[in-house]
Structure formats: structure tokens, C-alpha cells
């Protein structure tokens, strides 16, 4: 089974055959967006963009939760984490995301109690062990982390853990796809939908989008063969002029998704407008806690003075996130901005496009790469 799960989907012979299959059907240039940062990472890691025929261009989507968490929320996190009575918990990647004035690492270095957790359930444990402290979790993520965060809120309620709250920055994929397709500068002709988001939500939400924008959408996994299969199916549709939703990740994704997870998400969260870093407000693109759970909402629990945000003036991550520029087109890429010293959020997480290009720059086939 192990081999069926991983190495089977990396088998070089199959990878080559799939690429030949794509070569056979492609007759002209196509721009395909992989919405998910995990797929951007895999494409660069395995050099898939270099192996595919030159007609196929990947446009990297905004599907990295670390990258799109708004500067306002990062600044709020910094402010809450600096409070003396607070233990602030977060996934590791968020610690280096630059706010207007430093990052969570800076707060930690200055004596703040900032802790990295693997799961939000760890945060609940910390809250139980430290009843005299306020424990705040930075709840970022797409539909994949929402079931975990929602369950934690219900657990906090059941176990009467009152010193626990969340700074919520949930974002959803389908509204982002709509925003990209509605933009006058859009170049995307087909989508690889994010496989793991669909394991939770299913793929019924994409049917009206495919019809409305006349665009093929293929639910795609993360192994090299999964991605190539997704590309193959998108190209096949583009060449034939069809615009259907297909599922190329059937070992994990069903049409309806995980219903019990969806139920708990909707029990705890409700849809809201959400600001995406580098992009702006996308209507109805996020989740926030329902009013009945307001006591677990860090934004209302802590009195945060109005903050003024300041983005780096060189960073073009907004354009990178919208697929309008490639990371190497940024003047700071690999010089002023590196994963050790990121100017923008897309250089922090391994799912961010700038970091993926930096780490796997051997695969970048462009003349003016700053980083070698």
C-alpha cells in the first residue's frame, strides 16, 4: 500500500509516458493555474515545468495560507503575542512572516511566549496546563485546516476551557478562483483544483464556476504523476474546447467531500469578506467565528489599538500571487529577499511561490536569475 501511495505516483517510466501523452495532444500555448501552493512546490521540486512541452505555462495561484494572511492580521498577531499574559501559538511557518514591524520571531526574541504547534489541539492542552494565561492560536488556513480549528472550538466549549481564543484568518478557494477569472488581466485558461481542499469540500462548488467562465477545472493531487494527469486532462479539454469539472484524484476526493467535517465547519464558522495579502478584499472569501462563539475570537477578546500597516515597497508578491509576475521578475528575489530574510510572505512558506523558486532554482530556465 505504501508504494501505491507515494512511489507508485513518482515512477519515472510512468512520468515519462504521461509527458509523451501530453506532448501528443498539445497544439498551441496554454496557461494553466495550479491554485495550491503545495502543487507549486511539487512542480518546482520535480522540475515538472521543465519536463513539459514549452507550450504549457504554469501560473502559480494564491493557494498558500501563510502567504495570503493579511498584513493587518499579522500585525494584530504581533501585538497580541507581545502582551505579557499571553501564550501565542502558531504553525511554524507563520513565525517568519514579516509584519509591518518585525515578525513573531522578533516578538519571541524580545521575551514574548510564542510557541510552535503541530495541531490546534496542542493549543488546547497548553491552555489547560496554563489556566492563569491567555492562550491564543493563530488559526490560518484554507478549507483543509478549518475542520481541525472548528473542532477545537467545540472542544474548548465542552471542556470549558475559557482562557483559549483564536485569531482567525480562514480563506476559501472557490471565491479566489472567481476573483482571478473576473480580473481583466486574467490569463488563466484552465485550473488544477487543489486536491486536499477537495478532500474536505468535495468538488460540487466548481461546477457552476466551470460553466460560468467556460473553463476546465481538474481536481488534482500532489505527486508528480497526479499533477501530470491533471495537466493532461486540462490540456485535453482545452484542445477540444470543453469546460467540465473532472476528478483526477479519486483515491481521496469524492463529489460531496467529507460531510461531517463540512457540518462542523458550518456549525462554528460563517462566511465573511476577507482581505488577502497582496490582493485585497475578496468578497465572501473567508470564514469567521459565528456570533455564538465570539468569546473565542481573539480579535474581540483583546483590545487592539488601531494599527497602521506598512508593506515593503519593493515586494511584488501581490502580482506573484495573482499570477501576473513570476518570482524571478522581482528585483529583490534571491538578493535582498531570501527565505532567511524574507521581505514578503511568499518567500517564507515552502508553499509560497517565491520560496519554491528559490529552493529549486536549478530548475529555473531564465536568463536573469539573481540566485544561483
Amino acid at each position, binding site marked *: *500500500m505504501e508504494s501505491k501511495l507515494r512511489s507508485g505516483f513518482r515512477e519515472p517510466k510512468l512520468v515519462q509516458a504521461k509527458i509523451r501523452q501530453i506532448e501528443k495532444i498539445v497544439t498551441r500555448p496554454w496557461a494553466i493555474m495550479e491554485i495550491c501552493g503545495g502543487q507549486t512546490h511539487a512542480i518546482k521540486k520535480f522540475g515538472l515545468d521543465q519536463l513539459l512541452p514549452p507550450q504549457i505555462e504554469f501560473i502559480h495561484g494564491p493557494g498558500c495560507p501563510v502567504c495570503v494572511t493579511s498584513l493587518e492580521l499579522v500585525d494584530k498577531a504581533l501585538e497580541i503575542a507581545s502582551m505579557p499574559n499571553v501564550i501565542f501559538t502558531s504553525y511554524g511557518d507563520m513565525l517568519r512572516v514579516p509584519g509591518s514591524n518585525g515578525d513573531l520571531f522578533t516578538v519571541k526574541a524580545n521575551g514574548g511566549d510564542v510557541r510552535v504547534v*503541530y495541531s490546534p489541539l496542542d493549543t488546547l492542552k497548553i491552555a489547560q496546563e496554563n489556566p492563569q494565561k491567555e492562550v491564543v492560536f493563530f488559526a490560518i488556513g484554507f478549507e483543509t485546516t478549518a475542520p481541525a480549528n472548528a473542532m477545537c472550538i467545540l472542544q474548548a466549549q465542552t471542556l470549558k476551557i475559557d482562557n483559549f481564543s483564536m485569531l482567525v484568518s480562514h480563506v476559501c478557494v472557490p471565491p479566489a478562483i472567481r476573483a482571478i477569472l473576473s480580473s481583466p488581466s486574467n490569463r488563466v485558461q484552465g485550473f488544477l483544483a487543489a486536491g486536499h481542499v477537495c*478532500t474536505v469540500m468535495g468538488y460540487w462548488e466548481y461546477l457552476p464556476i466551470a460553466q460560468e467562465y467556460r473553463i476546465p477545472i481538474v481536481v488534482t493531487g500532489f505527486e508528480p504523476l497526479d499533477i501530470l494527469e491533471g495537466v493532461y486532462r486540462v490540456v485535453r479539454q482545452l484542445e477540444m474546447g470543453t469546460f467540465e469539472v473532472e476528478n483526477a484524484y*479519486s483515491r*481521496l476526493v469524492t463529489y460531496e467531500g467529507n460531510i*461531517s467535517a463540512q457540518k*462542523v465547519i458550518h456549525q462554528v464558522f460563517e462566511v465573511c469578506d476577507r482581505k488577502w495579502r497582496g490582493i485585497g478584499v475578496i468578497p465572501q472569501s473567508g470564514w469567521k467565528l459565528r456570533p455564538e462563539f465570539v468569546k473565542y475570537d481573539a480579535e474581540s477578546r483583546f483590545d487592539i489599538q488601531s494599527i497602521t500597516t506598512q508593506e515593503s515597497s519593493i515586494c511584488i508578491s501581490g502580482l506573484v500571487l495573482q499570477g501576473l509576475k513570476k518570482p524571478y521578475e522581482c528585483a529583490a528575489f534571491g538578493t535582498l529577499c531570501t527565505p532567511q530574510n524574507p521581505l514578503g510572505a511568499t518567500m517564507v512558506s515552502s508553499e509560497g511561490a517565491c520560496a519554491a523558486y528559490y529552493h529549486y532554482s536549478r530548475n529555473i530556465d531564465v536568463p536573469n536569475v539573481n540566485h544561483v
Partner: protein
Amino acid sequence: MCLGVPGKIVEIYEANGLSMGKIDFGGVLREACLAYVPEAKVGDYVLVHVGFALNVISEEEASETLALLNEIVNLDEQVSAQG
């Protein structure tokens, strides 16, 4: 964190009213919440996101997909051999 990790359930138990499991990620054991996969049994493979199993991985579908992919290679080889 959108990249779920597949692992095998080695033990199922309850903690604080939640169904939990010990999951083997290629030799590393970690705890995960199984509340969203009530159908999961010991020995099943699940996809885990931030400490929560969200799906049981369909072994049947995985084999079928790989079989289809292998078929393509075989066809491809036959065509090249003829050509």
C-alpha cells in the same frame, strides 16, 4: 499545511470524548483525531491535516489509477516498437 500526510492507523481510542488514533507515518508514530473518519479501522490509511484525519484513502482507487497509468506505458511501448 495544505499538504496532508498519509499514515496508517495502528490504534484507536477515545480521549476527552473524541475518537483519537495512533498513526504510523513511515515509522514515526503520532496522534491524530479520528472524529471525521468514523468509518476508519485499524490498518486503514488516512490523510492527516494538522492532527486531524480527514479521509480514508481508497486502496482500490489508488490501484486502479496506477493500473490505468501502467496500461498507457504499455500501449506507448507497443506503438514505439511497431513504429
